[in-house]
């Protein structure tokens, strides 16, 4: 055990099998580090955090960290998280989902959780493919890209997760790449502290499935692509849609305040008690 990475190691469950299950160079590991650093910066105690995940590569993430954790069924992370939050509103609930998890099977849960504005932080790892199950195309696989279920390339348009979250009514929406890990730390920290439904879209790479099928190279090559194609939202505002094609717009897309569901629900309870 290296003594010097104590901050990260303080939060890991050392009785689990390490090194973790993800492929060499996987962005999920970088996000895990970012998440731990962000939570550490917020100053919240381990017992105040609930980490909920669905199925997929991202589903393994809560296994490794020493918070209250819940590993649920495919696409249902937000539904379990809603239950946890309403039962114990004092807890800080964070969900970790993949792009398939949150946009395909859990797509409906996602838009309604955003609309309802329940105080949950939804972290979505977008690697544009179903990695764990064998590289099938997902709702975020870009048009024209190859997947094992789209060997003649995908003919569908991809979901833009952050833009969808904005439209669905999330009060805080941000996007960042795993390449910019330090900025990702800051973004996650802000999202956790934000009251209401906050979404962080983490653009990551799957060099083993998506990268190999589309000949995009190694994890390093895909991280370089992220570096070269990220555009801060302030700069993107001055650019044309043509210039922004295939670019990753990073930063905070929305930060607003709306009534939070569990507080409104508490008011309803009070009103109902008054009538009884």
């Amino acid at each position, binding site marked *: *055990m*290296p*003594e*010097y*990475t*104590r*901050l*990260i*190691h303080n939060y*890991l469950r050392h009785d689990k099998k*390490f*090194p*973790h299950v*993800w*492929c*060499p*160079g*996987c*962005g*999920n*590991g*970088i996000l*895990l*580090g970012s998440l731990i*650093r962000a939570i*550490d910066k917020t100053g919240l105690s381990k017992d105040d955090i609930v980490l909920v995940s669905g199925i997929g590569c991202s589903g393994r993430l809560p296994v490794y960290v020493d918070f209250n954790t819940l590993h649920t069924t495919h696409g249902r992370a937000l539904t379990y998280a809603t239950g946890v939050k309403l039962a114990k509103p004092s807890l800080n609930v964070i969900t970790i989902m993949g792009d398939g998890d949150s946009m395909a099977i859990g797509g409906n849960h996602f838009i309604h959780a955003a609309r309802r504005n329940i105080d949950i932080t939804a972290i979505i790892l977008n690697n544009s493919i179903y990695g764990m199950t064998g590289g099938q195309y997902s709702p975020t696989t870009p048009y024209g890209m190859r997947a094992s279920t789209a060997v003649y390339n995908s003919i569908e348009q991809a979901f833009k997760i952050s833009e969808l979250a904005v439209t669905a009514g999330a009060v805080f929406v941000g996007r960042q790449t*795993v*390449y910019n*890990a*330090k900025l990702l*730390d800051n973004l996650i920290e802000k999202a956790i502290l934000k009251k209401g439904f906050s979404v962080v879209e983490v653009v990551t790479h799957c060099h083993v499935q998506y990268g190999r099928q589309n000949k995009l190279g*190694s*994890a*390093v090559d895909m*991280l*370089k692509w992220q570096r070269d194609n990220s555009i801060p939202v302030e700069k993107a505002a001055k650019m044309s849609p043509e210039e922004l094609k295939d670019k990753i717009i990073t930063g905070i897309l929305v930060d607003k305040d709306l009534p939070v569901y569990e507080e409104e629900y508490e008011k309803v309870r009070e009103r109902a008690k008054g009538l009884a």
Partner: protein
Amino acid sequence: MAKVAKQAKEGKTTKTTKRRKTVAIDVYKAWCKGCGICVAFCPKGVLAQDEEGHAYAKNLEACIACMQCELRCPDFAITVITEDRLNAGKGGSAHG
């Protein structure tokens, strides 16, 4: 190191420079999967991969303790040990 010496000669030695001095770069081989991310994104070319793919400090003197390798290591296998971290007695944090 040469840079620090030069700055010292010119009387420019700041607390920051001294504090940032890297003593060692620790790679926990049991966790390192040899993905090469730390090697590729080191701005000073300090790191290299051995025959098994594990990272090691080939040119420690060039290290500016920017901590980019620590930040991006998906496996928490690499640690930059600086003087201030040693002096603090707590080993420092994983993000500097």
